[in-house]
């Protein structure tokens, strides 16, 4: 097994409840070392609980969590020393400066102050370090939280909704950090409900819904599994003419989103479908095979699961 396939984090049949509320139920997934794993799901899906269980900040009711080969319940101090976390709403000691907060983080993670300064520079927050954090904007707080999370160069970085409330520039620097750290062999786990953020950076997706894993795997595998039939987008001057597409040979289903999204049994059917629609009087303005996005995948998985329920 090569390094990239060795799991940095594994959840096996993990269950966590808060009173009557089941936060996670039979959750299984693993995050390979050096990969970017994106936990996707709506609010309340169990993403934050997953982060908290990973560092041992919470203890599961049942099941097993391992991080870097260690059980956070037993070796919590060691696990937490090797993991960095950016919580969804990063909190600081507001009445003291950004630098004081970073110095504190450096002390408890046994990192040099030079590493704290380096991290601040990386997120372009060094000029504001002298100010009290209470006066920081949301973007500055997130940059400081990122600097605080990476100053000890963690082997695993967990980002819980890291771009919430950020301006586009700051959001981009977060995504750049993810790419840069993964490039250095670090394991990244990012929780988000923003599908466009996961697009392009996710080596692996874990779709959480109401505390259970609906699907897990690489985007390519999931697309192959859930979207095995190709989709062709067809548009026309008179869109009512596209209604006929549903009756044509080889068309499995049609979704109308302005244009018609035709799920077909083979991409080779496209020319026959176009010919038939033109023969019926449609003046086509667009014919394009769909390269599925994560959004397409996500909603397809949701659709499949709803149907199976």
């Amino acid at each position, binding site marked *: 097994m090569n390094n990239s396939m060795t799991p940095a984090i594994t959840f096996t049949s993990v269950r966590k409840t*808060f*009173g009557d*509320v089941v936060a996670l139920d039979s959750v299984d997934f693993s995050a390979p070392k050096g990969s970017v794993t994106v936990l996707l799901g709506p609010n309340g899906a169990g993403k934050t609980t997953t982060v*908290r269980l990973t*560092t*041992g*900040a*919470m*203890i599961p009711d049942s099941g097993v969590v391992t991080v870097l080969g260690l059980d956070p319940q037993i070796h*919590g*101090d*060691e696990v*937490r*020393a090797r*993991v960095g*976390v950016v*919580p969804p*709403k*990063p*909190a*600081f*000691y*507001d*009445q*003291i400066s950004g630098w*004081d907060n970073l110095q*504190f*983080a450096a*002390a*408890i*993670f*046994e990192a040099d102050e030079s590493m704290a300064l380096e991290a601040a520079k990386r997120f372009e927050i060094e000029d504001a370090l002298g100010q009290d954090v209470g006066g920081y904007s949301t973007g500055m707080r997130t940059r400081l939280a990122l600097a*605080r999370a990476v100053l000890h160069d963690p082997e695993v970085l967990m980002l819980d909704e890291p771009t919430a409330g950020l301006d586009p520039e700051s959001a981009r620097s977060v995504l750049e950090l993810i790419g840069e750290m993964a490039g250095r062999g670090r394991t990244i786990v990012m929780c988000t409900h923003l599908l466009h953020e996961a697009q392009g950076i996710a080596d692996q997706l874990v779709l959480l819904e109401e505390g259970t894993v609906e699907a897990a795997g690489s985007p390519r595998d999931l697309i192959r599994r859930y979207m095995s039939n190709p989709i062709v987008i067809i548009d026309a001057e008179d869109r009512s003419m596209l209604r006929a597409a549903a009756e044509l040979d080889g068309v499995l289903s049609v979704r109308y989103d302005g244009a018609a999204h035709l799920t077909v049994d083979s991409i080779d059917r496209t020319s026959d479908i176009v010919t038939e629609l033109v023969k019926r009087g449609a003046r086509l303005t667009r014919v394009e095979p769909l390269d599925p996005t994560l959004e397409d995948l996500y909603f397809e998985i949701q659709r499949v699961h709803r149907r199976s329920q």
Partner: protein
Amino acid sequence: MRWRMVKAVVRIDLYRLFKTKDYWIPLVILGSMFFVFLPILLLGSLNLIARSPTIAQLADIVGALPDAVQANIRGESPAARAAYGVSVYLLAPIAIVVPLTISSAVGSNAIVGEREKGTGEYLAHSPLTVKEIYIAKLLGSLIPGYLAGIVGFAMYAVVVNVLVGSLVGGWFFPTPGWIILVLWVIPPFITIALALILRISARVRSSAAASQASSLVTLPVILMSYGIATGLIYSPVASAAIVGLVAWIIAAILLVTGSKSIKRERLLGVSAEA
């Protein structure tokens, strides 16, 4: 126990407290009232009314103290003996009330405050053990109170020596009883109160609730320590040493059990319990 990390938490807690003037200015006023203004008022009044019947009454009170205590009271005139008695014996308990009140106020907010602000989440994800966090929070609450006690004690010493020293033949304060009270007896009493208060702070859901619940602990401890402190000032130094030792043992037991009673999850936001 990784003391470097503990020190970092203590240092930041003290620094935050120092930066929060709204919090510590009332505490400084409280300490000043007990250690400076009240003694000046009382002892200054004694100087002004040296020949009044009140002094005779006070001298009677001082005269009613045990013989062993009477033997230690300095001064020739009734006014001087009354001033000495008030300085050394009647005001003794303030030395314990003020630090306990300050430490309790800081300690009640120590853990629940982190949860309310969300900074507890960061501590929960940090390599600090719960025991290290507990000890750090205890020290961060004990130090302001005890420091206030020491500073107040020093100011009190100056005040009583200036106001009463000339009447009793020179500077006389602190006496051995006071020294052992401040250095040996007060710290474990503050620790006992804080060990209990930190448990409360880790269990309640708001700072307001913590303050309310802590007063239930603080008040009996203050009353108990008030009584003990008063008694010790009149007792031989050996008695105070033994009482201090017993208090330290109780404090140690409470510290060990207290650090085990707090769960890491309690540092996370209140919503984590939903």
